[in-house]
């Protein structure tokens, strides 16, 4: 079976660090970064990128639409 690899791109400056994407992710890919953006929010990032399947759950729940999701077969 072909494996699917996804990638999540977070617009760091627009992320408000609410963490809804972190709990929405079924594969524990996303975490809030220890670093902050210019507004002082702990932005979301891919802590475990290999587990991402590109389901886009994170993008759907993101209130600030700062998540873009890509997916391809590898």
């Amino acid at each position, binding site marked *: 079976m072909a494996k699917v690899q996804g*990638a999540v791109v977070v617009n760091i400056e627009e992320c408000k660090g609410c963490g*809804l994407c972190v709990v929405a992710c079924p594969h524990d890919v996303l975490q809030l970064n220890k670093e902050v953006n210019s507004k002082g929010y702990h932005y979301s990032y891919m802590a475990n990128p290999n587990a991402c399947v*590109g389901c*886009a759950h994170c*993008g*759907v729940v993101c*209130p600030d639409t700062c*998540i873009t*999701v*890509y997916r391809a077969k590898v």
Partner: protein
Amino acid sequence: MELKDLIKPENLVYGKTKILEDEPMHYCPGCSHGVVHKLLAELIGEMGLQEKTIGIAPVGCAVFAYKYLDIDWQEAAHGRAPAVATALIRLKPDNFVFTYQGDGDLASIGAAEIMHACNRGENILVIFINNGIYGMTGGQMAPTTIEGMVTSTTPGGRNVDLNGYPMKITNLIAQLPGTSYVTRQAVHTASAARKCKRSIKKAIENVLDKKGTSFVEVVSTCNSGWKMTPVGANTWMEDNMIPYYPLGDLKDSVKGENSSEN
């Protein structure tokens, strides 16, 4: 495969719709308004309605909605969005008119307007954001505040003997013969948000087919007003709000025909 090889336009599965402006939203982190704005924007784009959509913004946090969706907007006095929408849809019957209202706006000061607009069966879509409090003004009790819920004006929790009972306004709306599709949804999880999007799509189709008023309640969070974290607010909503405001369709018919459920 390297991640940078994956990030190409042909692999895109989810991104920001063009209907949404690049303006960062002023809402608090984790606010449900952002998700509902996004669902509406996606549907307006997918259904090709950008040129004919007119939104009526409420008084409340979503008063600035005109900054975020690239469609025509009209502001209305507090609670009077259904009255303005009535005028617009009668003057411009070929347009798609929707109101976007919170619970303080729709269920309290605007209770008469919404009841009569729905009873007349105006061909408009009403999006009703129910977060149980007045979010913008500091988290005061609203008609929809559930029993025992702590707000800034009910610090000991809502006491039904003193403050009355929480109002299930969507159930009242579903009784009115002018409505065609009345539903209650939420956006706290990805599956709930996708389901909510399907409901709003159906509501828009009903409005375009002139079947009567469509009413979509979205049970929402206001984590700042509730004094919770965004994730904690979603959990609290699931445990406390949704049992009182159960999700699902309340009415699905055509104007003038009351469904048997009511």
